[in-house]
């Protein structure tokens, strides 16, 4: 870090200014700092193994072996928040990675190769990589490639491409069998990497904590139905870090318990509550956030438009259902990975969004057409048409990129957002 500060003084200063712009409470700042510090320490500790999983990977298997999770995507989000991703991305592109590829991946590769610390996107070298094609197809080849580049082992979980919502549970049961069988291969892989024997008992303790953390996280999210919601996207996208990364489940549970207690004190035990100061425009966001543009959310807030629900933040912390036995838990995890909200078929996905629009009293929807993640932007026009028709609220498709500022044009975005607000205003009369 010191070397980086001396070598990249301007980047470091720009990055610190970027972090400072985030709506961090002292506690949340501490949570973020704790993760990067522990990432660096775990990497330096010769007795502690580190493994690098992708988002959506069942991290609990790693935790059951005391393996510290090194998350390249989380560090890429840090770099995005710091507003310093352009150079790492260009560094990766100079190595031949296409402009069309994922900007998390390129931020991670570029920042690591330039020797940047994890606060700025670099990845402390893990002992191995694991990934799954659960939420993203790039995850498999990205991590396979990283393992090859760094000469460490790799394990890939193949998640069937399930279309949820059709009601054909027989297919799902077969798919669960397929994934559970791979869990045993994963356990064998982790035993080899860690030199430890797998303990079902320890795994169940980890899962119990994970389920508690996820349940707390979603209880907190539900309070955003209150009027006003109190917690908005620019905060929520950072607030989800502990449950998304799970490097410290006990700390995560303690933190979320405190936040929930505060919400209960303010709103009572059961959301939603109307405190008589509803936001002027309550918005829904669909897709990954634009990490480097917290200013966009602040600018919208000045106009009274606040994001109170995001499918993106709701999709984390999926381990909500309590399980008691090991076989049941494995099947439940497999089911949760296979049937994420993103896997819903179009009809069910629209119905699901319509339900959230009602629950969170939404005035308008923004769909992020993310240039880094074209599959996630598929069918957005159909979603837009359907919601505009059924709910009569404006839906805006916003073209940008989650981590690549070169794909973002302030003036274009503001013109579209202002028109979108004008439509909501006209609708309200």
């Amino acid at each position, binding site marked *: 870090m010191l070397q980086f500060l001396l070598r990249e003084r301007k980047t470091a200063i720009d990055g610190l200014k970027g972090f400072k712009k985030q709506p961090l409470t002292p506690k949340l700042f501490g949570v973020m700092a704790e993760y990067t510090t522990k990432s660096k320490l775990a990497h330096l500790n010769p007795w502690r193994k580190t493994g690098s999983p992708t988002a959506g990977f069942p991290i609990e298997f790693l935790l059951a072996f005391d393996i510290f999770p090194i998350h390249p995507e989380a560090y890429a989000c840090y770099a995005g928040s710091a507003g310093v991703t352009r150079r790492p991305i260009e560094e990766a592109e100079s190595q031949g990675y296409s402009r069309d590829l994922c900007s998390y991946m390129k931020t991670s590769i570029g920042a690591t190769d330039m020797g940047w610390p994890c606060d700025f996107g670099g990845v402390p070298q893990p002992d191995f990589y694991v990934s799954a094609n659960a939420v993203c197809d790039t995850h498999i080849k990205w991590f396979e490639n990283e393992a090859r580049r760094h000469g460490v082992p790799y394990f890939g979980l193949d998640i069937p491409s399930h279309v949820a919502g059709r009601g054909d549970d027989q297919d799902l049961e077969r798919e669960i069998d397929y994934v559970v069988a791979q869990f045993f291969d994963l356990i064998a892989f982790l035993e080899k990497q860690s030199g430890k024997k797998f303990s079902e008992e320890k795994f169940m303790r980890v899962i119990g904590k994970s389920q508690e953390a996820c349940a707390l996280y979603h209880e907190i999210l539900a309070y955003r139905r209150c009027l006003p919601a109190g917690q908005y996207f620019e905060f929520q996208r950072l607030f989800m870090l502990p449950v998304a990364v799970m490097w410290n489940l006990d700390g995560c549970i303690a933190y979320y318990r405190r936040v929930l207690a505060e919400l209960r004190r303010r709103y009572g035990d059961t959301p939603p509550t109307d405190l008589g100061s509803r936001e002027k425009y309550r918005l829904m966001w669909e897709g990954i956030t634009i990490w480097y543009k917290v200013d966009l959310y602040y600018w919208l807030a000045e106009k009274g438009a606040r994001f109170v629900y995001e499918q993106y933040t709701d999709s984390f912390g999926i381990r909500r259902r309590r399980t008691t036995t090991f076989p049941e838990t494995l099947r439940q995890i497999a089911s949760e990975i296979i049937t994420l909200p993103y896997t819903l078929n179009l009809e069910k996905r629209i119905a699901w969004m319509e339900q959230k629009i009602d629950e969170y009293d939404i005035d308008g929807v923004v769909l992020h*057409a993310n240039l880094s993640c074209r599959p996630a932007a598929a069918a957005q*026009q159909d979603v*837009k*048409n359907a919601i*505009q028709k059924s709910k009569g609220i*404006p839906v805006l498709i916003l*073209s940008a990129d989650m981590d690549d500022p070169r*794909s973002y*044009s302030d*003036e*274009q975005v503001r*013109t*579209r957002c*202002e*028109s979108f607000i*004008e*439509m909501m205003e*006209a609708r309200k009369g």
Partner: protein
Amino acid sequence: MIAIGLDIGSTTTKIAVMEERKLLYTEIVPTGYNVEKTWKELFAATRERLNLEMEMIGGIVSTGYGRNSVDIATRRVTEIMCHAAGIRYSLPGTRSIIDIGGQDSKFIQLGETGEVTDFKMNDKCAAGTGRFLEVMARALESNLEDFGKLSLVAEKAARISSMCTVFAESEVISLIAKGEARENIIAGIHDSIANRMVSMMGRSGVVTPVAMTGGVARNEGIRSALEKKLGISIEVPATAQVNGAVGAASLAS
């Protein structure tokens, strides 16, 4: 009272003056690099020409990408709303607007009472905009005024497949080298813009009557290409190029 609309676009700045919702005056000047200087000079020249004292002006609405630079505006409104208001003024009953400006192309859908129900804009790319046409006109050593007429006498439209302005210019140069008639190349360029526009519009459906606004609306070749592809007729109001400013003035009224 007098109402003024200022539309500061990427290529041109437009002013429209209304009195009791009646259009009195419009003017267009190049925007240039100094947006603030341009609108201030245009505003001053308009006041002088119409003998307008400031106290006679009841409202000023600014629009276009330079709208926030107009510190005397009583309201700043986006191009989407102003184009809709402009069409409500000049062609009431219109349900869809195609607006091709200097760097933006837009498709605006209106409800039965002329309110905006949806809009689409080009993303991250100048293909299908006035800027695209300017680049092509330069490559063909022609001017935009002749472009529309020349394309109407083309025997067949040449094929321009690239959507990228820079690559399309290379294609045009390559077609010139192959001896392709200039009229055919221009017709191909118009087809390329129309294809881009139609694909953008198709995503949300076209409801008639359809009107076209913006500087490119003056180009008969593009309008004709769009009409053929959509199988409908497209109205072009006399105030097409200043439609945003007219809409702004009507919102200021």
